[in-house]
């Protein structure tokens, strides 16, 4: 599996993603500068976390005009797998590759902590190595992760099983107390209608090594490979 990781000015989880994909999991990883336009050499594109353009104006707003974004749009249209993590999710929203928008967190400005999230849909390109309703522990670290969509968009998300992860408590109950940022319906991650683009606020690359005592992120990357194998087959 060849994974392309986009570096925008201000990305800061690009190298973390590469470390996990390449050194920990043994896949191929390429950092791709945002001014490049070719994605022909990769199977999967990751938009990593960070503060592209300092998150000035709105998180992800400026990055979406980078030259690579047009290539990503075409890549996604042809069914290519695109994963946006944290700031990457925000960029996908701003670019219109995923529906909705991010508001500022409801309580504290920036929150860094481990949260529990529930796999709402284990049939996706991104989650096929998880069990349905499985409760995962993953870190979040963001100031704008309060997902918003208008009622029509929200019902479309429901209709097409696009909600992939929700914040929950340790037992898997999706409660208001378990919602760290005020996100609509505790949404932590959504995919597009076609199912090949996912945006999520938690960081799977930060929980993919034994040394951290948490490895729930590994299955996400494994799911991608599984999905790719099936696409080829």
């Amino acid at each position, binding site marked *: 599996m060849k994974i392309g990781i986009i570096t925008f000015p201000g990305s800061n989880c690009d190298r973390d993603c590469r470390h996990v994909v390449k050194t920990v999991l043994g896949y191929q990883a390429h950092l791709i500068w945002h001014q490049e336009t070719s994605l022909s050499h990769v199977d999967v594109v990751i938009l990593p976390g960070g503060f592209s353009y300092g998150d000035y*104006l709105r998180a992800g707003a400026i990055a979406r005009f980078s030259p690579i974004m047009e290539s990503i749009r075409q890549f996604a249209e042809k069914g290519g797998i695109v994963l946006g993590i944290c700031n990457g999710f925000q960029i996908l929203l701003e670019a219109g590759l995923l529906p909705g928008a991010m508001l500022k967190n*409801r309580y504290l400005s920036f929150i860094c902590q481990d949260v529990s999230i529930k796999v709402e849909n284990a049939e996706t390109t991104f989650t096929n190595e998880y069990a349905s309703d499985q409760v995962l522990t993953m870190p979040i670290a963001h100031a704008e992760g309060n997902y*918003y969509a208008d009622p029509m968009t929200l019902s479309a998300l429901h209709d097409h099983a696009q909600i992939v992860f929700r914040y929950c408590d340790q037992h898997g109950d999706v409660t208001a107390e378990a919602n760290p940022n005020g996100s609509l319906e505790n949404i932590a991650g959504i995919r597009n209608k076609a199912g090949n683009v996912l945006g999520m606020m938690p960081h799977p690359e930060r929980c993919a090594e034994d040394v951290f005592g948490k490895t729930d992120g590994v299955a996400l990357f494994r799911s991608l490979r599984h999905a790719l194998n099936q696409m080829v087959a």
Partner: protein
Amino acid sequence: MKAIIYVTLKSGIHDPQGHAVQQSLETFGFHAVDSVRIGKLLEVDLNETDHTKAEAVVKAMCDKLLSNPVIEDYRFELS
């Protein structure tokens, strides 16, 4: 010309930042405040003297970058 652009959250969308500010006003003893909503104020200097052209440019900038139509409205003044 100079454009003053006002970007506000669409009505009906909860404004967490405004809410937080309202709460701290409350704790500082400003009880007369019912609600606070926070938007952006952009002052843009343009080297464009034609009013119609300037208007078109500012509108395009707002649509493309300066506001997010999913959650925000904007209006502007030229002078």
